[in-house]
């Protein structure tokens, strides 16, 4: 183990590489890679890693990057890639295929505004576009969480009770390009944490199967149902992955959500990704001043931790959801998910959406204060409120 000052991209590149290397005694690792700002450093890191049994394939598009990873995964290797923004949009068809093929591919995504207009800064719209696909999704707050969630993503995705791909997202530049003290676990520890990949449906000459051919409605629907059942098991298996992480790395990587002060909070601020760092500080300060305000960070977005969120808001009268994303004609995506989580459980609860920091805008401490002031005085919800830094 070493503690180094590295960027979020470096942490991601390191995690993908040591995870791939950890499969060297089995069928090795492989990935298709393609550059796009601001994730390029991740694939550069992977391309220069001294793997013992791996081939990194520099392809001509994101679409093919995922396609190579799909082929490698089907052949039983540990497969991964990284992308961002329009690159993810271009990759979408094969992202979908990786999910429906139940391949435990891990993708690190740097959340960047989808263009046009051309904008390279943080916005979660690229990965939230994938919310209806069979992918597990994590939103990491900082460099350490990028690394930890990526390692956990492999273990979770490859578990035979799950067999779903997983993505770990981080905010463009705010995390991807900011250097911070990060614990980088040794290869030997990662080897202990990640068992050799054993894909039950890998391509075998001795047992030839045709994957992805025609399936009548009843069969195709049963495959969807199996995905739903696997999603239902994520909560339990993720708990095991977290416990194993503590055993091997002697640190707690955190759960699907993180809470602060929710035991008595009347107002709860719900955030994700790097906005959490700012929001947590504000909530801490205001709690110290005696205010009953709570904080929830949603780290696992898919499957959405509905129950945990409801429990965290048990004493709340109003919830403020901050969304760095926008679904056209509706509002923030985390807000929609939160609304659905409380539907039929807490119909008295005010759940107000604040669209903050879209397209890379700053989310400043005064903005969090403004959100809290607004939600505290509310007696009803309104349409999502658009906010920019003063």
């Amino acid at each position, binding site marked *: 183990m070493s503690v180094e000052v590295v960027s979020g991209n470096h942490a991601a590149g390191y995690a993908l590489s040591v995870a791939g290397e950890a499969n060297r005694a089995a069928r090795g690792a492989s990935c298709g890679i393609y550059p796009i700002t601001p994730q390029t450093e991740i694939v550069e890191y992977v391309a220069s890693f001294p793997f013992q049994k791996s081939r990194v394939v520099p392809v001509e598009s994101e679409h093919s990057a995922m396609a190579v990873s799909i082929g490698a995964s089907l052949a039983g290797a540990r497969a991964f890639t990284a992308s961002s923004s329009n690159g993810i949009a271009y990759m979408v068809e094969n992202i979908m*295929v990786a999910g429906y093929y139940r391949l435990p591919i891990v993708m690190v995504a740097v959340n960047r505004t989808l263009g046009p207009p051309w904008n390279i800064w943080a916005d979660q719209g690229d990965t939230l576009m994938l919310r209806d696909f069979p992918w597990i999704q994590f939103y990491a707050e900082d460099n350490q969480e990028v690394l930890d969630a990526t390692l956990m993503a492999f273990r979770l995705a490859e578990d035979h009770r799950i067999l779903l791909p997983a993505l770990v997202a981080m905010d463009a530049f705010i995390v991807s390009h900011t250097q911070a003290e990060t614990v980088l676990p040794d290869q030997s520890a990662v080897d202990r944490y990640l068992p050799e990949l054993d894909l039950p449906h890998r391509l075998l000459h001795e047992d030839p199967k*045709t994957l992805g051919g025609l399936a009548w409605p009843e069969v195709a629907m049963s495959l969807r149902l199996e995905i739903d059942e696997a999603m239902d098991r994520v909560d339990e298996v993720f708990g095991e992955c977290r416990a194993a992480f503590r055993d091997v790395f002697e640190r707690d990587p955190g759960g699907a959500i993180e809470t602060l002060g929710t035991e008595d909070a009347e107002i709860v601020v719900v955030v994700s990704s790097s906005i959490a760092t700012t929001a947590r500080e504000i909530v801490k300060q205001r709690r110290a001043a005696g205010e009953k305000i709570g904080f929830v960070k949603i780290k696992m977005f898919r499957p959405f931790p509905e129950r945990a969120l409801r429990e965290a808001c048990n004493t709340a009268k109003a919830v403020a959801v901050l969304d760095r994303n926008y679904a056209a004609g509706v509002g923030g995506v985390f807000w929609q998910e939160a609304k659905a989580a409380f539907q039929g459980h807490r119909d008295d609860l005010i759940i107000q959406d604040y669209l903050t920091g879209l397209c890379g805008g700053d989310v400043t401490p005064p903005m969090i204060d403004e959100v809290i002031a607004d939600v505290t005085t509310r007696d009803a919800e309104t349409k999502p409120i658009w906010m920019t830094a003063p």
Partner: protein
Amino acid sequence: MNGDRPISTLEQAPPIPCTEECLLRPGNTNCGGCGMGVGLTMLGRALAEADDTCTLAIPACCGIVTAGAFPTTSYGVPTVATTFASAAAVAAGIATVRDLNEERGQVICWAGDGGTYDIGIATLSAAAERNENIIYICYDNEIYGNTGGQRSSATPPGARTTTTPGGKSEEKKDIMAIMAAHQIPYAATLSIAHPDDFSRKLKTAFNTPGTRFLLMHSPCPTGWKSEPADSVELVRLAVASGLFPLYEVWNGSAWRINVEPDWTSPTEYFQRQRRFKDGEIDLQATERSCRDQFKRLKTLAQEFPHKTEEG
């Protein structure tokens, strides 16, 4: 409807034993007279003769419909359906892991002209540029057959399709020249009317590492509006008249012609397919263009001959 979810059909499905060792099993869903079915049979035979095996990567095309519906399959080898544009990239991933583990077996893309000439060309070009260790076989029926017969960039001039109801006005893309220009180790054309030549080229491909591209002229009675029994005769006429020359290219720098056309008039070739209308094909221009194309190939084969003999 209730708390008890239906039992997965997957778990209920009886296992289908793999009793047929051939690549394409009997009972597949191909139309009568389909050239692709013949090609798959010949591929299976060539693999068996070479004591080799393969994994198939098949993009959206009739080739994946051939498998039939789950839980049955017509394929006796591991087969994966890829997205339309991705066959060469998925195959590259599979071949990479095969090579990392030093395993046997070819990784073969089996793709139509739509997936090769059109939507998949960037992926194929990139795989060829990286010299991925795969065999890419395009069964070229000159049409989007699986969707009911639309024009592709492989459709020849004059052919009526559902999207060129007045006949296609553009030339057919020269995919062989494009692939040879990638300087891949081996590229060759195949005709099911010349089975010995077909098999020999498959074996050459098996024994040549790197990216190998094979272009097979694939009759499609449904799209060509021809009689199923005429399929082999039609592609024989295409070779004889110089419409579909049989040749090989090594590393984009050495050529060999395999069958000399006897310059049979292409009239019969056109007349036996109702996708071509009488009077709409300029026969003289077609014959001239075939002779010119063959002359260019012949010049290349004479000036830059392939020297060593392969399998």
